[in-house]
């Protein structure tokens, strides 16, 4: 612990609020994602495929009313899935930004009360944004004064605006710091060390992000346009059904497989990068994890192992089926458990710090 640590990490100070809030948002967002993957994702995909088959059968039967009814149902299913994915992503990203802001606080030239107020505003926005997104599907257009935007969307957009305002204010504080040409931070920097845990998280995180970028570039170059073209071919088949073996069923299956292929490739790309970023961010928090060296290393290993297992087995889902899906979910649980383990360490650290302050 450095001499300046208590001042930087004071009770209910902005850094502590942002570190706690950030880790809690990330853990909650990941837990929500795991629950969604197990209980909603696959069921939703099956229902969408079934609805598409019904629509194609209605086309063959020249029943345009039935087609409209099925598409209303498909829209509902897609909204259900889309809003849950967005809630998951936005909650985790708000947590990442909170951790980032915690790191930047020593370089933000604003008053202590303003910084604390901004931290509270940010955490409020970070919680309300995913909540609003989640509610979009359930609230719909009930009592909305607008033609296409419901109250839940208004809540989500307002929370998003709140995050932007806080970020701009923090940027303004950082600009003030740079303009004053100060040589040192305004308050003690968050503690830095070169422990095994910190180096493992830094190097491991950077390699994870690099792998994710390379995979993303490969996907954009080789698969993105091919997937878009293949989707059109399948949709044309559905509208003008082939008379050969399989017929409509084969086209619907091909459509389902294409959607699954896209979903797993995008999920692998985004998750490996997000986990890499998380690992780097957690490397900064390590001095505040009040656990024995053995347990700190265990959580680092569990986190990095889960970060590799999840994206790899998400990719293997198409080949290995539910087994790979189960292993991927277990990878997600490993990351959550490691995150909660580190959060417990931070709670213990703040407890000991506050006890020392009270004694003094």
């Amino acid at each position, binding site marked *: 612990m450095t001499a300046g640590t208590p001042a930087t990490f004071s009770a209910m100070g902005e850094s502590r609020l942002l570190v706690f809030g950030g880790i809690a948002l990330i853990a909650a967002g990941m837990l929500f994602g795991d629950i969604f993957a197990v209980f909603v994702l696959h069921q939703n995909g099956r229902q969408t495929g079934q609805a598409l088959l019904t629509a194609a059968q209605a086309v063959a039967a020249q029943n345009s009313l039935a087609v409209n009814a099925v598409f209303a149902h498909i*829209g509902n299913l897609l909204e259900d899935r889309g809003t849950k994915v967005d809630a998951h992503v936005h909650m985790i990203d708000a947590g990442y930004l909170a951790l980032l802001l915690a790191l*930047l606080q020593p*370089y933000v030239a604003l008053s202590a009360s303003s910084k604390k107020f901004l931290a509270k505003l940010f955490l409020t926005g970070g919680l309300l944004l995913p909540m609003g997104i989640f509610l979009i599907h359930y609230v719909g257009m009930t009592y909305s004064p607008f033609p296409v935007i419901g109250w839940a969307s208004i809540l989500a957009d307002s929370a998003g605006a709140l995050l932007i305002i806080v970020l701009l204010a923090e940027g303004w504080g950082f600009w003030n710091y740079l303009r004053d040409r100060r040589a040192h931070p305004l308050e003690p920097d968050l503690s830095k060390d070169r422990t095994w845990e910190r180096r493992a998280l830094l190097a491991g995180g950077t390699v994870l992000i690099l792998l994710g970028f390379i995979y993303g570039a490969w996907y954009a170059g080789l698969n993105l346009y091919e997937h878009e073209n293949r989707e059109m071919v399948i949709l044309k088949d559905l509208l003008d059904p082939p008379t050969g073996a399989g017929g409509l069923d084969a086209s619907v299956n091909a459509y389902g497989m294409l959607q699954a292929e896209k979903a797993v490739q995008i999920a692998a790309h985004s998750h490996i990068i997000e986990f890499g*970023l998380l690992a780097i961010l957690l490397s900064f928090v390590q001095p505040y994890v009040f656990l024995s060296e053995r347990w700190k290393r265990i959580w680092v290993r569990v986190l990095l192992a889960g970060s590799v297992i999840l994206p790899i087995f998400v990719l293997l889902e198409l080949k290995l089926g539910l087994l790979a899906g189960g292993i991927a979910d277990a990878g997600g649980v490993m990351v959550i458990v490691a995150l909660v383990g580190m959060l417990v360490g931070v709670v213990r650290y703040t407890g000991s710090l506050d006890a020392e302050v009270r004694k003094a």
Partner: protein
Amino acid sequence: MSTARKLLIFGGTVLAAVGMLYGLHYAIFVEHQTLDRMGGSLASAFVHAAERRPEDSQLALIAYRESKYDYVRQVDVHSHWIGLAMLMIVLGVVFDEVALGERARFAIALAMLVGAIVFPLGVILQTARMALQTAQLGSALAIAGSALVIVALGATAVGFMRGDAK
């Protein structure tokens, strides 16, 4: 604070705000309408096919393809700008631990910033309904931008692995 760190942290913060503003603008003024158009045109393609109007069905399918093409890329722009901005800020905090010379660190930070701006910008240009050259320029910028980010990230990883930095 070194120039490379300032570039990454300040550039990242501005880029995150730009990405969020872009996302907010898109969510309020474009997204709902695009989703309605996308879903409506796919439903129309099926309805017209059921009514045995193949030409209208084909036109609706083309409209669906174009809406989806734009939607996927616009959402990608928003998420990639914010994602890259966050990465820049994180690396900015820890950049002194990259065991390379100050000039090399500045070059890496600059490459990261330029790549992070240009890559999503190229993706936006791909959706512009203008000359074919604009779309090609967009693709070229997106490729160049992503290559810059990958190279900068690779160099950073090497810097982290080289041992203790100043």
